[in-house]
């Protein structure tokens, strides 16, 4: 089975948590492989989730590789496959193949301050890095997190974020004023500009809607971050996950294989076809 890159392994959904309701719902699914094997991966890598009969979707893994009990995927309901996934129940079986992609170069970040900047569902790939860094805090400098969404109810991992505040600076934001909201109101890049994180010995890791990423990069460049201090992830439509089906490329790079993690120094040299 292992030799066939298109064959999924079966996995059971062990828990489902509703993160966000409303018209753009997000749920977190924790899964275990049925065969009891471990699914080894790196922070920032993705997996192809199959809902048999509906198709496959490439989703980033939001749990830490150090978490041995489950794999977590936080999924925005967007199309055919993710809608089917959202309708599944605890105990349902899905297919998994992967992991795919390059992942974040955590080994290069030892001793550095890590600044996480996420928007909306874009917190998911960052969350894997953040959880890993938290468990190995001695390996890194100061950790901090900027995270925003359109409204307070669109924020994912609400409980975890509340707890996280005891451990590291967490700067939350929402796009427009809401009664009872005591934190920043405005877009994520504005919050970053307001708090002015220092570029000294720092790495900024940003993920979110393309427009947010664009302005976050502009903002932190103004704060003095160099291109090789900025990391982000990109996404495109994918089918194979192994650089063959031809649809996720940006220039010579296949995001499924050579991405999805890029330093801005690299990404800015590639065509903007994402």
């Amino acid at each position, binding site marked *: 089975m292992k030799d066939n890159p298109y064959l999924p392994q079966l996995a059971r959904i062990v828990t489902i948590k509703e993160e966000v309701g409303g*018209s753009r719902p997000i749920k977190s699914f924790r899964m275990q492989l049925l065969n009891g094997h471990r699914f080894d991966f790196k922070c920032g890598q993705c997996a192809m989730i199959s809902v048999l009969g509906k198709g496959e979707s490439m989703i980033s893994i939001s749990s830490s590789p150090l978490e041995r009990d489950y794999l977590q995927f936080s999924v925005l309901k*967007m*199309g*055919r496959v993710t*809608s089917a996934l959202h309708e599944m129940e605890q105990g349902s079986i899905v297919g998994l193949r992967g992991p795919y992609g390059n992942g974040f170069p955590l080994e290069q970040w030892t001793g550095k301050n890590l600044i996480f900047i996420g928007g909306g569902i874009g917190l998911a790939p960052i969350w894997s890095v953040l959880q890993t860094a938290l468990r190995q805090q001695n390996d890194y400098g100061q950790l901090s997190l900027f995270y925003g969404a359109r409204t307070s109810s669109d924020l994912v991992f609400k409980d975890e974020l509340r707890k996280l505040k005891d451990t590291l600076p967490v700067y939350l934001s929402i796009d427009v004023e809401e009664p009872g909201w005591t934190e920043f109101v405005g877009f994520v890049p504005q919050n970053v500009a307001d708090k002015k994180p220092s570029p000294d010995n720092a790495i900024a890791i940003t993920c979110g809607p393309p427009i947010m990423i664009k302005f976050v990069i502009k903002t932190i460049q103004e704060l003095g971050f160099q291109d090789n201090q900025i990391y982000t992830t990109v996404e495109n439509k994918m089918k194979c996950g192994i650089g063959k089906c031809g649809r996720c490329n940006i220039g010579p790079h296949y995001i499924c294989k050579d991405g999805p993690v890029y330093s801005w120094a690299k990404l800015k040299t590639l065509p903007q076809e994402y």
Partner: protein
Amino acid sequence: MVKISDVRQEAKRLLEKGKVRGVVGYVPGTRGGWAIPYLIQEAERAEQLVWDPTCVHNLALFVVEEKKEQAKQKEPDKRPLAVMVKGCDSRAINVLLQEKFINREEVVLLGVSCENSGVVDRRKITHLLHGQQAGEIRFGDNGNIVVVVNSERRIFDPQEVLADRCLECQYNFPVVFDYFYGEKIKKTPPAPYAQVEKLESFSLEKRRQFWEEEMARCLRCYACRSVCPMCYCAECVVDPISFAVEPTTTAEEKAKKIKWIEKSPLLSENFVYHLVRAIHLAGRCVDCGECERVCPEGISIRLLNKKLEREALRLFNYVAGTDSQAPSLLSTFQETDPEDFIW
């Protein structure tokens, strides 16, 4: 004879005066003198326009394409588009007008008459030249076609080289135009439905075998759909996903999009694709024959459409694209409509 210099002059004038945002016409292609469709936007380029028997493309397609392109633009250029139209192209324009896909003032029509000739069939020419490449193909006298091969002039009878659609066509003159070039010559095709009748004379089993052999070859490259000016739907039943996705489209709406057919080029799916397309073209197809011309597998797509064209004529005395004001066939009911096919 169509004087191409007149067409060029008008195109140039329209562009110079800024009356149109562009002229869609034919210019020489790169291989062996076959014309290609081209959008001319600079007046001096109007000199490149050509009119010869290789002007096979139905340019009404580009009216559709440009209309869709404009819909995406924030500040589209509202000036009309000028288009060279043959008889069949102009009939397609009429259907677009009739279905209110475009308004009359969106186009300036430079009508060209095919007179007593038409456009050639590349396969026939290739066959007659035994693979040699034609350097130039032009209209000769009395509807004859002149083909220059290795600087030698060869003259062919239209029956030998014209596309079947032209041999069976009686709309050799544009039915709607703002300017026209060339003469209006009455043409009565000897037997426009000969091929349909021949097929109908076969047994059911033989007909099924014929269509199975045709459909089995389909690669589902969708060239027939892509080239058809009548296939303008934003959302086609054969597409697995919806193109009409807006930021407000919900996941449920996308997930509920019914997959009518599989993408796999299986015989069953190919049949569904071509039959659905044919039915949707009933009373709309203007027999420009482009679907069959572009098919890389040489599938007799036109024959399917021709059959429905004859049904429309026989049952409803209806010919598509002849009157932009007439009610369209399948969206109207008349008490005199035959209904003996309903039990």
